[in-house]
Structures are given as structure tokens and as C-alpha cells.
């Protein structure tokens, strides 16, 4: 057959595409259950990290089931409603109208008392960022934080998922003295805010820092009524 002819070229392209598609589809399907489990373990690990409990891929599930007190879903009015907290997809919930939104809460029993974990989700520079914030039972002081991202720039925006950045949040407060929600400012040089509402932003990661700041304010606003009721 003429290797430079149209027929050969078309046939070659068609067969190649079919083979590649078949290989990728079957690999993807074969590995899906394993990948899903990895994501679940990762999520448990991250939730545990936000209440300062260390775990790894093999221990996360066991420790999680030992330490968790209860998990439930609330609406923006702060009332408990039916729902599966762990499998709630924040991306889908945030797209809903405010009164239909389901907001998961996880309560953990730690050495330092009961902690409340609130999942948050927002946008960084290149893609979604998310995290888990744990609060003391005054529903105001941050006990721990864990952030993660899909594709922020390594060394810059991706620094939000480092312990150094996350630990800045410990002890910060969501509400001011008058009970107004002010959340946390992720500050650039020169930005002033009371110490308890401010952490240092990331040099070279301004858009990620500001995205994280917006994520916290937006999501704490959604949880606001629940936090006030629980206080």
C-alpha cells in the first residue's frame, strides 16, 4: 500500500485513535475504584490534619473512625438537615441556591476537647483550592487548618498547602468583639488588620492568597448562622 496515499493516512489515523481510546478507557475504568479509594483516604487524612492528628495512607481510615464523634449536614440557617456529610460535594453545593445548600460539619474528639471541622472550597489562580478549618468549641477560634489545591504553581501559590502557612491560622479568630464576622485577611505587605484576623500572604502567590482569603470569608459567611447558634 502507498504509505503516502490518503487512504493509508486516513486508515492509520483512524486505527491509531481507536487503539489509543480503547487503551485509555480500559485503563481508566480498571483503575477507577482504586483511585476513588485513594481520594477518600486523602480526604480523611486532610480532615485529621486540620485537627492536628497525624496519619498516613495506611492509618488514616482507622484513626478517622476512632476520633470522629459525629458528622452531619446543616443549611445556611444553621439547622441540621438530612445528608451524607462525608460524601457531600462542595462544588455542587456551592452552585446551588443559598437556601438549598448543604454544609457538612465534622465533630472530632481530640486531646484538647471537641473540635468542629468546616470544609471550605474556592478558587486559586489555576484551579480550585479547598481545605478544612477546625474550630474550638467557642465557634470562633481556629484550632487548625489544612489546605490543598489542584494545580497552583509550585513554590508560589502551592505554598498554601505547607505546614508553615497552615500553622499561621492557629489561634486566629473569625468574629470580632462585637460579634461581627470578619474572617481572616491574607495580608500583602502594607495591609493592616488586627493580629487575630490576619496571616501573612505568600510572596509571588498573591492571586492564590487572595483566593484563599475570599474562600474563607465566603464560606464562613455560609456557616455564620450555624456558628452563632452553636456558640
Amino acid at each position: 500500500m502507498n504509505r503516502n496515499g490518503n487512504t493509508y493516512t486516513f486508515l492509520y489515523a483512524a486505527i491509531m485513535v481507536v487503539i489509543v481510546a480503547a487503551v485509555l478507557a480500559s485503563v481508566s475504568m480498571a483503575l477507577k475504584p482504586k483511585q476513588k479509594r485513594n481520594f477518600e483516604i486523602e480526604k480523611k487524612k486532610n480532615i485529621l490534619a486540620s485537627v492536628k492528628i497525624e496519619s498516613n495512607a495506611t492509618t488514616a481510615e482507622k484513626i478517622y473512625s476512632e476520633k470522629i464523634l459525629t458528622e452531619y449536614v446543616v443549611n445556611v440557617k444553621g439547622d441540621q438537615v438530612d445528608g451524607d456529610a462525608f460524601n457531600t460535594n462542595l462544588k455542587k453545593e456551592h452552585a446551588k441556591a443559598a437556601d438549598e445548600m448543604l454544609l457538612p460539619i465534622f465533630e472530632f474528639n481530640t486531646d484538647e476537647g471537641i473540635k468542629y471541622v468546616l470544609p471550605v472550597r474556592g478558587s486559586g489562580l489555576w484551579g480550585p483550592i479547598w481545605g478544612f478549618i477546625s474550630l474550638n468549641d467557642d465557634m470562633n477560634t481556629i484550632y487548625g487548618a489544612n489546605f490543598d489545591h489542584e494545580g497552583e504553581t509550585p513554590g508560589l501559590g502551592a505554598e498554601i498547602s505547607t505546614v508553615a502557612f497552615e500553622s499561621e491560622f492557629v489561634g486566629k479568630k473569625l468574629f470580632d468583639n462585637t460579634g461581627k464576622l470578619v474572617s481572616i485577611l491574607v495580608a500583602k505587605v502594607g495591609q493592616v488588620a488586627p493580629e487575630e484576623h490576619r496571616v501573612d500572604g505568600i510572596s509571588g502567590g498573591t492571586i492564590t492568597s487572595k483566593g484563599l482569603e475570599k474562600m474563607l470569608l465566603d464560606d464562613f459567611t455560609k456557616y455564620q448562622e450555624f456558628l452563632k447558634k452553636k456558640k
Partner: protein
Amino acid sequence: MSEPMFSKKNLKLLSDPINNSNPITVQVLGICSALAVTAQLKPSIVMALSVTAVLALSNVVVSLLRNTIPNRIRIIVQLVIIATLVILVDELLKAFVFDVSRQLSVFVGLIITNCIIMGRLEAFALGNRPWQSFLDGVGNAAGYGVILIIIGVIRELFGSGSLLGFKIIPESWYIANGGFYENNGLMVLSPMALIVVGVIIWVQRHRNRTLIEN
């Protein structure tokens, strides 16, 4: 094969790209990822390893198919092969070494766009046998990796005062603690990577005058 597997000629395929035909400093390919991922040493190493895997494999695959690929769509065929390999690697990492996959994050996608890979497929694998192509792939990836690691070391050391996340510059040196030293913020930003590449090119051409164009 009449020729021994590690003949002098074959070894040259491995060693040349590390030095005198280095993909980054001599051919000036793959600059984009060299700028993007080298703010720290660890991602530089991870990127170097992933490119090695993809480049060696795609070189072999293209070399095996070289007599069947229709000339007019060869670039498309090469791209499909690279993209398929990258996705396969990504899926396998996600399933079996999830932690590594988390660290790689965006780099996996970046590998597809790495011009070194297309360059080697086009310039070498299309006209050579699989074993030679494999060596060429490993050699070029190593040449790329060496430069990435050098830039990563320089940028992380002077930009963040650490290597692989471990503090190297003593805390007491910093002005904030009463010392005399301050991290160079420019090192963390991409333009500095370009300057470092430029300096490496300068040093290399100073040592090997034959590389200087007239």
C-alpha cells in the same frame, strides 16, 4: 544486532546531550518547564524523572512504529503517542502512588508540552532503532534534568534559604533576627530562572568555545 549494546557510539548518545548538545543550554528547548517548576529542588527532581520516563518510552514507541507512520501526519501521531503515555503514567500514579501524584499535580500536563520530547521524536526516533532511541531519550532527559536540578538548587537555596525543604541558611543570619542576610525574593520568580539559565549557558560556552556561533 552486530554492534554491542553499549558500544562507544551508543554511549555517546547518552553522554552528548548531558554536555555538548544539552537540550536546554545548547538547543534551548524545554525552557518553559525549566522556568515553571524550578522554584524548589523537589519539583525539579520529580519533573526530571517524569520527563525521563515519558521521553524514553515515547522514543521507543515511535522508533518501533517509524516505518509505518505516514509522513504527512507524523507530528500528530507523535503528539498522540506522547499524550497517551503521559495520561497512562498519570492514571497509574493516581492509583498506585497517590502521594507522588499529588506532588506532580500540574507537571504531568506540562510534560506533553515539553518541546524536547517532540524534538527528539522528530530528530532521532523517526530514523533510528529502538535501543538507540531509548539511549537517546534517557540521555536527553538526563541533560534536561541536570540543568533543572542546578537551577532548582540555586533558586531554592538563595530564594528560600533551604534545600528540599530543609533550612540551610541559619536563622540567626537573617536581618529579622539581627543578622545580615535576606532571602532574594527575585529568585522565587520565573524571570530569575531565565537569568540562571543564561549564566549556565555563558559558563558552558566559556569552557567549550566550539559551541559559540559566529
